[in-house]
């Protein structure tokens, strides 16, 4: 039972990692890519850590394993805040769907300049 | 082919790429990067070749641990020297010898040298 739950959580975590990578590759601008990256840190790493903590030998190992996740959460939140704030201060405008130009081209040019 | 040998081969390639970078690149920050990559390649060779029978050998690992710490100390020193050079002369590339004839690119660097020589001559 524990094996099945652990394997399911690992596969769910791998799915969120895949979703984050696809989002990083396909999303149009910096802010949406930041959003995809937060999914990787929160859900992907969380599912994998919980799935591995289910099969830990001792309580101390499971506790140390579960300590990785809040640290990654705090780091991810801080990074997202700092990067989004700095991008806003640099004048990078968020991508909008009703922009007249082609979305990916315009967004990549705008996040570049 | 065992996986440790694979890492050793990758270390050789990294060392070659880093050595070529140290020789061929001009920007000093890039030379620091190439030097670090060269050091990482040497460490990979050291640890990868020491793992022949699958059992890790602790002695090369301790050497490599020391080497990584020394490499980051050398990086810090090199960056401090580059920043000092940039503050003194405004240059960030390593072209000293071939640019010396032209005079305009190395005017800031060649200026202190005759003063030092003159100072030594005056002491004598």
């Amino acid at each position, binding site marked *: 039972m524990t094996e099945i739950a652990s394997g399911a959580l690992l*596969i769910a975590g*791998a799915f969120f990692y895949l979703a984050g990578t696809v989002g990083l590759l396909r999303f149009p601008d910096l802010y949406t890519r930041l959003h995809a990256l937060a999914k990787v840190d929160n859900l992907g790493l969380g599912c994998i850590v919980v799935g591995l903590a289910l*099969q830990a030998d001792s309580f101390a190992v499971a506790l140390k394993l579960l300590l*990785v996740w809040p*640290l990654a959460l705090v780091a991810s939140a801080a990074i997202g805040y700092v990067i989004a704030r700095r991008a806003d201060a*640099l004048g990078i405008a968020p991508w909008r769907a009703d922009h007249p130009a082609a979305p990916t081209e315009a967004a*990549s040019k705008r996040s570049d300049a | 082919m065992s996986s440790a040998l694979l890492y050793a081969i990758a270390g050789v390639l990294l060392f070659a790429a880093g050595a070529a970078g140290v020789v061929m690149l001009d920007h000093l920050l890039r030379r620091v990067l190439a030097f670090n990559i060269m050091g990482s390649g040497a460490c990979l060779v050291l640890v990868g070749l020491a793992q022949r029978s699958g059992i890790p050998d602790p002695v090369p690992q301790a050497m490599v641990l020391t080497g990584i710490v020394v490499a980051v100390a050398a990086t810090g020193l090199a960056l401090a020297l580059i920043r000092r050079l940039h503050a003194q002369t405004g240059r960030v590339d390593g072209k000293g010898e071939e640019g010396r004839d032209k005079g305009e690119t190395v005017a800031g660097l060649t200026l202190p040298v005759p003063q030092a020589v003159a100072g030594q001559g005056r002491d004598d």
Partner: protein
Amino acid sequence: MTGLELPIALFLLANLAASLWRVLRGPGDANRLLAALLFGSTGVGVLVLLAFAGERAVTPLLDVALTLALLAAITAIAFAQRAWRRATPAEGGDD
């Protein structure tokens, strides 16, 4: 171990190979920084998986994962605060 850790770690490494494309081609330095951040968090996941891939759990790898999670964030914040400046006009002309 369930025998699933090493294939999933391989899968995460394949994800890294895909996001290396964003490091190579992504427009602007900031998007490359995001890919480097993804490298950091995926590296933490791979480390945690490799810690449990053997017969016995290798607990020092959890320390490595903790260090990586902390210091990748510090590098990213250093980049955003110190090195990320307004893009020069030559920025659009690369690759």
